[in-house]
């Protein structure tokens, strides 16, 4: 068993480093990919991610801690003094409802997509105009009300071919003619390898993910690289709680589940005694990996512990550690029960 596991890991690492090397050749010189990161390449995650069941599970495990969702924002906006009000119960309920609606907007998850295909759409060739100019002509359609991705950008090359602009060119044009707040014409130096590691060491995961969202499209290979590096680093340091109740928690869980790395996440959740979240993640696992063994066994989906145990027995890669964590959890629960009973008997109830 252990041998097969190591073999699997070995193969996986070879596969992904190869990909990384290829990609680094394609990209510019500073976009090197030294850490082996898993990116959605072999299978398209979009249909799974956008399916209703997965979305509900991801939203549920994200959690809505209002203190974290509506935290103080360092966005240079002018502050207004807080208001204190007396409210009836109905008004309070209404306010809470509004807050929930707003929080669901703030917690909207960035879409998880496959790496986009390069555009090579040649519209026409006209070799008779070679020599007219030595530079490219870039034409952007600025028709009102078009979304960025549907905007037509065409390039006339010096050799007379008229083609659709590549993603990079089109994004640059979009930022020039239709600037989006937070996006810069040149990507910030923060995304370069050496600076990124520095920021991640300080644990500013949300900042990096937020700025990656603002700068890149969600199917940009650079975005996928950065997010996976951040997720790997979170997984390594096991500080999942930092991203809890943010819009990135869902994609983080999705990434870990997709790459079958949920053991550490499950253990840390068990240590915080969040059994329901564990069960949700196992359910997510079963939805993503439809051919997993634990799905074949019929377990009552309301029995969280049974679900978790079935997963540990059949699909887990680190059975022993997980089992230990489950035992510890059960012991804590049992002790607490015992303690409560003792208190009750002492009170003579």
């Amino acid at each position: 068993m252990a041998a097969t596991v190591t073999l699997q890991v070995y193969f996986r690492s070879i596969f992904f480093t190869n990909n990384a090397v290829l990609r680094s050749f394609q990209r510019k010189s500073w976009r090197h990919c030294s850490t082996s990161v898993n990116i959605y390449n072999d299978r398209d995650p979009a249909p799974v991610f956008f399916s209703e069941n997965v979305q509900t599970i991801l939203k549920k495990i994200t959690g809505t801690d209002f203190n974290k969702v509506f935290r103080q924002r360092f966005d240079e906006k002018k502050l207004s003094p807080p208001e204190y009000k007396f409210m009836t119960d109905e008004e309070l309920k209404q306010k809470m409802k509004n807050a929930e609606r707003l929080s669901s907007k703030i917690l909207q998850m960035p879409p998880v997509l496959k790496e986009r295909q390069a555009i090579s759409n040649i519209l026409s060739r006209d070799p008779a105009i070679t020599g007219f100019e030595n530079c490219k002509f870039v034409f952007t359609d600025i028709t009102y009300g078009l979304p960025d991705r549907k905007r037509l950008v065409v390039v006339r090359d010096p050799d007379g071919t008229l083609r659709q602009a590549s993603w990079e060119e089109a994004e640059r044009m979009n930022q020039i003619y239709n600037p989006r707040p937070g996006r810069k014409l040149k990507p910030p130096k923060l995304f370069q390898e050496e600076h990124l590691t520095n920021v991640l060491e300080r644990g500013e995961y949300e900042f990096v993910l937020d700025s990656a969202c603002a700068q890149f499209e969600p199917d940009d290979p650079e975005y996928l690289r950065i997010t996976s590096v951040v997720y790997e680093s979170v997984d390594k340091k096991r500080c999942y709680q930092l991203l809890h109740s943010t819009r990135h928690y869902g994609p983080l869980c999705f990434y870990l589940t997709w790459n079958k790395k949920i053991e550490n996440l499950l253990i840390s959740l068990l240590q915080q005694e969040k059994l329901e979240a564990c069960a949700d993640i196992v359910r997510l696992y079963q939805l993503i990996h439809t051919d997993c063994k634990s799905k074949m066994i019929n377990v009552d989906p309301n029995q969280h512990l049974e679900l978790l145990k079935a997963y540990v027995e059949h699909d887990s890669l680190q059975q022993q550690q997980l089992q230990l964590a489950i035992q510890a959890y059960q012991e804590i629960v049992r002790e607490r029960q015992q303690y409560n009973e003792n208190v009750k008997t002492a009170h003579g109830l």
Partner: protein
Amino acid sequence: MPFPAAGGARVPLRTAKCIRFARHGCANRPFYHIVVMDKKSPRQGHVIEQLGTWDPLVNAHGEKLCSINLERTTYWISKGALISEGCSMLLGLAGLLPIHPRVYLLAWRNRRAAAAQKVQEKEDAAQVEN
């Protein structure tokens, strides 16, 4: 008081309208708006509508940038607006119109000049050797 760059001029009936450039930018840094104007109005006159921009200087990526509002341009062309030579060259390169004959002519001249220069250089090199 200059006219607003974005347009707003009265649309006179039965006069020729023209799609052409209006120069913005400053000394030694040309920048043009592609605009619809009355044919007889001056270059910096009151614009009926702005259709796009044209930056004739090459940027750091080796590109010349042009933006066109395709929806409004096709509308004005369908209304029978005239198109100035520079604009129709540009729209031809963009693939909206057939390529302007002057583009072919200029390209041919440039190629001829380049070939002539090459021959000249060869001759010079031969002379230096002798």
